[in-house]
């Protein structure tokens, strides 16, 4: 554990003002459209301090909802003048993200866009990630929809964060600060005076560990994922009746995919005329009917439950196989916000139970 010291509770969000004063762009939980969402803040007054998890993720600051990748102008003498995407990413600190988002964005999305396995690195994402310092705050009170421990993470897991801040529980609460990377160390130096105490203070480390343990004990939504991937690996299970049973009510609204920190699907569209315009990369969703609709009219996934089956397969199998990274970090947004309560954890529970029964682990 790389404890650097602690921050007093009343100073925590002053970090926003310090960073803003230094010309750093700060993304933090703030009120947008009446909802707590990650947004750019220029003052600590704009921060929502009493939150569990903002409705959106900060992936939209690294992988924008809409992004121009190309401008074209037809030249009168023939051919085109092409201009590529803008590469101007301000130095950014994401303050107040949670471990589930940090792991999903810093590891899983990085595996997709960084091209570690298959190449084709996307510099738009990677350069933004490079310019971003992720300062996460551990959760102490998970709600009914959170399930990160089941996915191998936890409310105080450092994966994907440059800095992790954990609120201690016993006695006078303080926010213990751990610097986890060179960017994290640089951040600690930036906020200098706000950090008190000694590096590697054993007592602080112990209190921080206790807080993490206590938070872990508060999860309600816990279940066994053993066997889920094996169930999904077998093509014979693709036709299991559970998919229609659990997914028929889906309305294909796409909210799950837009709020999901590991979802990365997009479309490339030309907007303009034959003589000038642009090509934009825009978020898309495998839940929309037109996503896989062929020009010939062939539709591989005509029904909403078939599309949700693809989502489940992606999060619990395909992501791991194709990108060698976790497809789901248990943030619970899709469970919490689905308008018709489609619940991916019920899929995982059924798939795991069936597989374990099949191989004789369970009755």
């Amino acid at each position: 554990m790389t404890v650097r010291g602690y921050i007093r509770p009343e100073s925590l969000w002053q970090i926003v003002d310090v960073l803003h004063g230094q010309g750093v762009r700060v993304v933090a939980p703030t009120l947008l459209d009446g909802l707590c969402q990650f947004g750019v803040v220029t003052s600590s007054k704009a921060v929502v301090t009493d939150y569990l998890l903002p409705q959106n993720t900060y992936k939209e600051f690294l992988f924008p909802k809409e992004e121009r990748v190309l401008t074209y102008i037809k030249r009168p003498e023939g051919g085109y003048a092409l201009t590529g995407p803008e590469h101007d990413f301000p130095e950014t600190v994401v303050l107040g993200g949670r471990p589930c988002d940090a792991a999903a964005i810093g590891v899983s999305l990085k595996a997709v866009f960084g091209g570690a396995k298959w190449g084709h690195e996307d510099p738009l994402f990677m350069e933004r990630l490079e310019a971003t310092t992720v300062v996460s705050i551990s959760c102490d009170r998970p709600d009914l929809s959170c399930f990160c421990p089941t996915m191998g993470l936890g409310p105080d897991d450092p994966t994907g964060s440059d800095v992790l801040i954990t609120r201690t529980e016993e006695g006078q609460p303080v926010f213990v600060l751990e610097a986890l990377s060179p960017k994290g160390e640089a951040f600690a130096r930036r906020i200098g005076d706000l950090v008190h105490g000694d590096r590697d203070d054993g007592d602080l480390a112990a209190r921080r560990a206790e807080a993490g343990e206590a938070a872990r004990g508060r999860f309600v939504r816990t279940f066994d994922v053993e066997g889920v991937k094996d169930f999904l690996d077998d093509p014979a299970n693709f036709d299991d009746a559970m998919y229609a049973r659990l997914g028929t009510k889906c309305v294909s609204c796409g909210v799950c995919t837009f709020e999901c920190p590991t979802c990365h699907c997009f479309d490339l569209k030309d907007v303009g005329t034959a003589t000038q315009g642009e090509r934009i990369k825009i978020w898309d969703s495998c839940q929309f009917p037109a996503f896989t609709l062929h020009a010939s009219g062939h539709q591989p996934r005509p029904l909403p439950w078939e599309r949700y089956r693809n989502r489940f397969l992606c999060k619990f199998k395909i992501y791991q196989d194709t990108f060698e990274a976790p497809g789901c970090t248990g943030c619970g947004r899709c469970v919490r916000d689905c308008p018709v309560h489609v619940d991916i954890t019920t899929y995982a529970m059924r798939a795991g139970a069936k597989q374990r029964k099949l191989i004789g682990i369970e009755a």
Partner: protein
Amino acid sequence: MSGTALQAAVRPGHLYVPKLVRIQKVIRETHDVVTFRMAFVDEADQAAFSYNVGQFGEFSLFGMGESTFNISSSPTWKGYFECCFREVGRVTEALARLKEGDVIGFRGPYGNAYDLERMRGRDLIFAAGGIGFPPIRCLVWQVLAEREKYGAIVVVHGARTAGDLIYQREMEEWARLGDVHVIKTVDPGGEPEGWDGEVGFVPTVVEERVPWVLERRGKGVENAMAFTCGPPIMTKFVIEALIRMGFGLDQIVLTLENKMKCAVGKCGRCNIGGTYVCLEGPIFTADQVAAMHDDA
């Protein structure tokens, strides 16, 4: 004009930005199938361009979008490359109206390629239906460029009517080589007056004619490989015919198509179950396809 000047503002090799290519020749294969022969506007790009047989590219008509086509030329040809497409929708209909000298965009090459090593010394059966011919045609030309490395070659091409057959002059050229068996066929009812080819669906013709060719060489199917591309229903029946003839699933090679956009494994669109077609395909053996989830 210099291609470099046109694209100076673009970071070289940027993932989603195409390079400009100029159409050198437009060949009308049929009433709705067109071949473009093209080369990079920047000569240095053209000289440096290489690809493996069977790969595909994303072809841009700026203002309308990109289309995914197989690169239908053989990599052994220098100075240009080709694509061949049918007018099925908005973008392809607009592409089909382009003329020589027009400029479009190209991103590629993407995807996997045919395994030429595995094909060496083997008898090769090619069965192509309709617009499924281009991904087979490039392979035939590649093989013919090093003819001595391969065994018998049989090419079966069929379409609904004679007017829908493509690459007819090339098929005649292959037949004139003397050691390539070339069979053209039309669906029953599609034969015109004085038709000199076969009449029958591609799978039927394959099953009737191919065993004879192999027997004549005193060979069974163990040394053969079959390559097929065409409408899904045709492919299904071709594979069944090949199995009846004794082919193992790993001796049968096909191309899978699925809706594609980025072609680099990021937009999440082209997966069939756990397989991203743009990354692991589009060329697969029949046993690989049999192992996939029923998601297509």
